[in-house]
């Protein structure tokens, strides 16, 4: 029993970080051991004698993630050439930090800094010389718009913050840093406008970030799954966007944005159904045009979830509803089809899903094959083989085409899964069960909350807001910020009374 306690104490003492020693040899030995020097090829150190103090100095860093020129210009040359009383006078780089223990040292080296140990000094210094490689700013490819800025977030945190700051010159815009992950600590930035954001929500975001228990959270896509409320729910509750312009518009309304290295995008919380339904282009287009586009999208939303199910319900259970010409045409085309109608629909819907999945995964050079194979399955060949009737091709094509109008990737999956739920329920008792399933689905979605905000707000429950739901108002008539997230300042127009 005591042995056990002892062991615990031992591990405790072990976790206590070791302080930087006065003797250079000891420090060198320790840090070399920590980073497996010799085995670890890119872990490098340089030894030199400083001119100002004539003491031995050693610089440790990862050669793969630092800028060699910077190391030379900011550290090596001043040490070799400059005079001064202390190391701070010699090294005048923008970020010099004093380090007292090895845990800090490790962290700094890992994040691309160089650590300087001086003989006879029990303080080490960290200088930021990091140079992580990242992709340049590209075009937003997954959320394409015709009008509006085209640049997209890239995989670098600093660049992404700069893209936002470029759009929003506000001293209240805060980028708060946080670290997640136990083994590999990743920097997460929470961006918000300090005098707009709702403190409750901000606190909840901070808490959720603090509560993440993981060795490594590599990027935002994974982070999203760590911070969302209901991991098994059908609908997403965090919005991912790759457009800085879109992100900024949410910031202006008092939302919170989460940024991270290694993700070409940002997370926006809290969001509602409407955030997934809207496209940034709705705002970049004029009032009437933007709303027309939304109307079309809403129709697409309805068709993609309902058209196959409605077709099954009507033809199998309510054939009296069909105009006789259509009825006879469908009947005639079905005379030679061996499968029940619901099965026909399922064959085609699944074929479409296969093409879609394969289309995403297929290597680029093989891309065109998808088109050819897809046209065979979804086209005349299947009809001629008497596997499906021609009208099913149209139904599936409409259902597939409209699903592309649901732009957000996450909600797109929700909608596609929903479609299958509806198809099965329509095959069960016709319109009756379809309506039952729709009601159940609707109630379920309405019950979802994103960081405490109801999913269909501000439509239901109603809040004072710009009522930017299915349609939007003319921009000059938008007086309020969305009330459902309870921003500190709900009035949008500073000067008007």
């Amino acid at each position: 029993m005591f042995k056990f306690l002892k062991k615990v104490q031992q591990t405790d003492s072990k976790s206590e970080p070791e302080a930087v020693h006065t003797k250079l040899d000891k420090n060198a030995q320790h840090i070399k051991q920590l980073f497996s020097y010799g085995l670890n090829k890119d872990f490098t150190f340089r030894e030199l004698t400083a001119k100002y103090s004539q003491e031995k100095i050693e610089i440790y860093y990862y050669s793969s993630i630092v800028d060699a020129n910077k190391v030379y210009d900011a550290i090596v040359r001043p040490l070799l050439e400059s005079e001064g009383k202390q190391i701070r006078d010699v090294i005048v780089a923008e970020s010099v930090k004093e380090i007292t223990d090895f845990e800090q040292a490790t962290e700094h080296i890992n994040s691309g800094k160089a650590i300087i140990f001086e003989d006879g000094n029990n303080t080490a210094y960290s200088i930021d010389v990091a140079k992580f490689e990242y992709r340049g700013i590209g075009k937003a490819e997954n959320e394409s718009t015709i009008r509006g800025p085209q640049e997209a977030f890239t995989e670098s945190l600093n660049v992404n913050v700069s893209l936002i700051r470029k759009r929003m010159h506000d001293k209240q815009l805060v980028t708060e840093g946080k670290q997640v992950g136990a083994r590999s600590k990743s920097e997460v930035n929470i961006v918000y406008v300090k005098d707009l954001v709702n403190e409750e929500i901000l606190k909840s975001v901070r808490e959720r970030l603090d509560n993440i228990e993981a060795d490594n959270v590599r990027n935002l896509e994974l982070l999203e799954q760590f911070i969302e409320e209901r991991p098994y729910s059908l609908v997403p509750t965090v919005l991912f966007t790759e457009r800085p312009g879109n992100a900024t518009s949410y910031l202006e309304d008092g939302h919170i944005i989460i940024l991270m290295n290694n993700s070409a995008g940002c997370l926006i919380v809290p969001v509602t159904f409407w955030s997934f339904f809207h496209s940034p282009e709705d705002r970049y287009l004029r009032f009437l045009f933007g709303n027309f586009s939304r109307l079309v999208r809403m129709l697409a939303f309805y068709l993609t979830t309902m058209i196959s199910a409605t077709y099954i319900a009507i033809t199998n259970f309510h054939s009296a509803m069909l105009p006789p010409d259509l009825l006879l045409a469908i009947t005639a085309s079905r005379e030679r089809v061996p499968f029940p109608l619901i099965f026909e629909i399922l064959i085609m819907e699944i074929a479409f899903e296969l093409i879609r999945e394969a289309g995403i995964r297929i290597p680029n050079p093989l891309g065109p094959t998808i088109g050819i194979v897809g046209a065979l399955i979804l086209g005349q060949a299947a009809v001629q083989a008497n596997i499906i009737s021609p009208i099913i091709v149209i139904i599936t094509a409409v259902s597939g085409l409209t699903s592309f109008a649901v732009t957000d990737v996450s909600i797109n999956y929700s909608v596609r899964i929903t479609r299958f739920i509806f198809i099965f329920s329509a095959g069960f008792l016709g319109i009756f069960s379809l309506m039952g399933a729709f009601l159940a689905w609707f109630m379920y979605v309405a019950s979802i909350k994103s960081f405490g905000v109801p999913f269909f707000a501000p439509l239901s429950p109603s809040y004072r807001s710009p009522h930017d739901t299915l349609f939007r108002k003319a921009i000059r008539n938008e007086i309020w910020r969305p009330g459902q997230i309870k921003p500190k300042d709900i009035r949008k127009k500073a000067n008007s009374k």
Partner: protein
Amino acid sequence: MRLKTIILIIMLIPLFLVGCYDKKELEQQAYVVAIGVDKTDEKGLYKFTFQIANPEVGSAIVGGGSQEEPKETVSIKGSDILTATNTANSFVSREITLDHTKVLIASEELARSGDFIRIMQSTARTTQIRRGVQILVSKEDASEFLQNINPKMETRPHKYYQLILDRAKETGIIPEAEIHRFFQITEGDADLFLAIYATNKKAKEKDDGYEDEYVAGQLPKEGGNNSQFMGSAVFKEGKMIGTLDGQETRLAHVFDPTLDMDDLLSTYPDPIKEEFRIGADYSQKSSPEINIEYNKNKPTKINVRVPFQIEIIAIPSLVDYSQNKDNKELLKKTIEESLEKKSRELIRKTQEEYKAEPFYWSLYIRKYFKTIEEYEEADWNKNIYPNAEININFDLERLEFGKMLNDSNLTEVRD
């Protein structure tokens, strides 16, 4: 967790057991477009004829199979429509569905026998037959009528019924005869119900009639289908008592605000050159004004004012009616008088022969009675209407002459 899964599966299994209990694939059904009913020698037993559309004919998507007939017409004896469908399944391969029925055809013999109302009961009870199905009375047996319908331009039978009935109704030569209206009028027990009258058989042609003064069978025509839809069969208390010709049916449309008529092209006598007639487009912008002055002990007065408009479309006599003011007045008066005269004839026929009216005017007398008993007591059908003084007044509000005012000047053309 495992328990949860098991419970979930157990809850889902029954769905597979009960699912799809009234599901019916389209190709397993035979769609009836017309139902015919005939009398047989036995009482309570009727001959039902079902005209079934063949889906394969006329749809472009299907290759082959075009040798098949566009329709199949089968007759079977039975006591009501629905049970007859089951008996017919001994030789019709699919479930007979009545959802898409367009017309219900009764032979004149059956309609006059009074058994027709017995047949109609099942149509109200079932969900399969819509209330919008048109009731048609055929001069010959319904089965014969259906067997011989052979439209030249519409291959698919439902299209034929749909088009001919809609168009003929627009011109007013046949009435709107929905099952719903049949029950409404028959159970209201005050008015006459008009059903569509049609035949495939040519009767003796009537040569002296003008454009709409025929009943089906009398039309002096050449070519086209044999089937003629013209005029109406008059039902009193669910029993057929006579026929109205096309013109009378059109007048019934004029007097009945519940009926619609879109197109009324007809001719009127030429007041100056009497051997010619003048073609005109009759239109009505507002419903007729029907004022009933109910007198308990002396004849009720019914004043009907019909405001209407005329656009002249043909003056074969070439008389100048458009520029000459006197002629114009004369024409106006002639048209009004001609309409009033025909109306008076129709009214007299209904008052004396049928002793009831087909115009749904009972709607206008009801306001004089406080209770239904009182209304039934007064007896619109037997007492008030046959003895009423009816004053019909056609009021020509506007007379137009088309886009050309003058006709060709015959003396100049033939100099």
